[in-house]
């Protein structure tokens, strides 16, 4: 970890980075914001860890817990909402056996999350599966994709 953090430090100095870009860099490398990474930067930069925590919790793109190896992102934009994104999300949660506000499957394989808008409103409802965009999503199509993910995980 130390090596990676040194690398991030070097890049951020070169690019005139700030708290947000450091955290983005950490998130990109680790997939989430590990507490140790924050403490390391806090010491090196002499910035209280609480400031990192404040910024981390303010922005929706930072995660304090590790996420699944596969990310399914359901768009909840207005166009997607009126075309039934809620239905898709509850069906997906059921398919993945996610209970009470959990977002990641027990085996840590698949994370289901929401995003405010992906800007692909004309193809609503849309779902992003491992960064590939799927437009005009239906319950059947989504279930099929999730089954494929589950199968690949086994």
């Amino acid at each position, binding site marked *: 970890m130390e090596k990676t953090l040194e690398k991030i430090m070097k890049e951020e100095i070169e690019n005139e980075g700030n708290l947000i870009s450091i955290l983005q860099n950490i998130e990109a490398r680790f997939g989430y914001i590990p507490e140790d990474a924050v403490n390391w930067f806090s010491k090196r930069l002499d910035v209280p860890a609480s400031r990192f925590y404040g910024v981390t919790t303010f922005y929706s793109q930072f995660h304090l817990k590790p996420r699944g190896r596969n990310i399914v992102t359901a768009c909840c934009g*207005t*166009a997607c909402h009126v075309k039934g994104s809620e239905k898709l999300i509850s*069906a997906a949660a059921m398919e993945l056996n996610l209970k009470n506000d959990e977002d990641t499957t027990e085996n840590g394989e698949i994370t289901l999350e929401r995003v*405010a808008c992906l*800007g*692909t*409103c004309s193809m609503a409802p849309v779902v992003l599966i491992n960064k590939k965009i*799927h437009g005009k999503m239906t319950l059947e199509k989504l279930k099929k994709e999730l089954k494929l993910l589950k199968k690949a995980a086994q």
Partner: protein
Amino acid sequence: MSSVKIMVCMGPGGIASGGAEVISAFESELRQANVSADIHKGCSLHKVGCFGLCSKDVLVDLIIDGAKTTYQSVKPEMVRRIVSEHIIGNLPVAEWTADENYHNFYKKQVKVVLSDCGRIDYENIDSYISEGGYKAAEKVFAGMTPEAVTAEIKNSGLRGRGGAGFPTGVKWEACRKTAAGQKYIICNADEGDPGAFMDRAVIEGNPHAVIEGMLIGSYAIGASRGYVYIRAEYPLAVERLKYAIKDAHERGFLGSNIFGSKLKFDIQLKLGAGAFVCGEETALIASIEGQRGMPRPKPPYPVFQGLWGKPTVINNVETLANIPYIIKKGSAWYSSYGTEKSKGTKVFALTGKVKNTGLIEVPMGITLREIIYDIGGGIEGGKALKAVQTGGPSGGCIPANMVDINVDYESLARVGSIVGSGGMIVLDEDNCMVNMAQYFLQFTQSESCGKCVPCRIGTKRLLEILSRITKGKGRDGDIELLEKLSRDIKSASLCGLGQTAPNPVLSTIKYFRNEYEAHLKGKCPAAVCKELLTYYILEEFCKGCGACLRACPSKAITGEKKKLHKIDPAVCVKCGACFDVCKFKAVKKE
């Protein structure tokens, strides 16, 4: 020897429909047919930005010796025939070419910002230059004073396209007149309104127009540095803009001694991290500075005291992309479009329950009816129009009986909505207006930064009341309470987020009070609100096919083959899967 140009839409809709696969299909078919070597010497394949009519994506323009044929809904497996019959055989595949509906979609549109989008190769700076790109910047640097540039923009009547509609020229002038060693120009590409994607499409389809707009702005106000604050949810826009900035640098449009002058200008990208409030100017500034994106009180306005305390102009993407065209063609030409107070054209993201969904650019003042029926082709599936939501979470719903309203800043404000950034979501009879209000409040409540009390607590309380109404637990006087609370939040909040967050509530109460009242009586007229619904199967229609039984995720449906099926209301989670899957309309919800 003929020249063949193939332009494939790689805009937001094009990519989601498989644009990349269509391109590789063209590459392999052309290779196999040996086209570039044998038949047409000048055959080129281009990736271009959004065409507009996303619902017919992937759209492909085939230009042979200047004659254009558009293909719609192109799939990779269709490419072989297009190559062999049209490119080689010179005979268009008539059944796949754009139909009347496609042409009607464009008839009433006027393209300014989008005029080059879908026509130029976004990866190729020469493609932009060959269409007159960077000519406006050259004209400005070579022979116009900053005063003249600001005057020209003022005369054009261009107003901020991000939502607030503040006159761009006035903003520039104020910043120009503020004396300071360092000034900044920021492009606000934090397109946060759910349901709006024009800024994404403009950056992805014509990134150089945004850069040129910023360059002209920097000259007018005297800024040597610019920032583009862009949402991280738009990775493709980030990538294309980065590429374009690098190209502009190499050609000397950015950097030092621009167009032989002593001026320098650099643009840096700053990625947002997912916060709607960062679209607000002062919150955006805080975010660029690396802090939590919390708004600051205004005044001081950013034009006097902005980024790092220096005078800063913040313009939206669409606003900036308009600038080169206004400078090239003149303010008189631009202001010939539109109404008295709303000049020019505006890009809207037409989505929802309308046949033709996509990106449209229309002159200000066009009627909503023209947009929905002439351009949009009417409502999907023969349903009835209920309302049109404009302006995102800060806007309102315009009811169907007001469809003849003119679409401009003033007219929409009069009926309790706004133009906003240009989201236009068409709602039909199947949409519940209380649910819509709740949806927007959920959004604004979770995006409220928490700095000021009226917004932080007010939106929370609004959402609670709306939630209990949609659950059938509304109380007498709830509607009046919503109205009062809304007015208080509007008048007391610190920034635009709180000041406009109650608009979706107020406008739906104003025009759809009966739906609120029905919910208080335990009914959702549009059959949307789960808690107020029961699902059951009609005996006379059920064929016992078992489709609903297989679709039910909670095993609430029982029944033998070819016999009547039943839903157990105690187990039913009201997901609607059975309703969607039944071919005989035997599942009923009330």
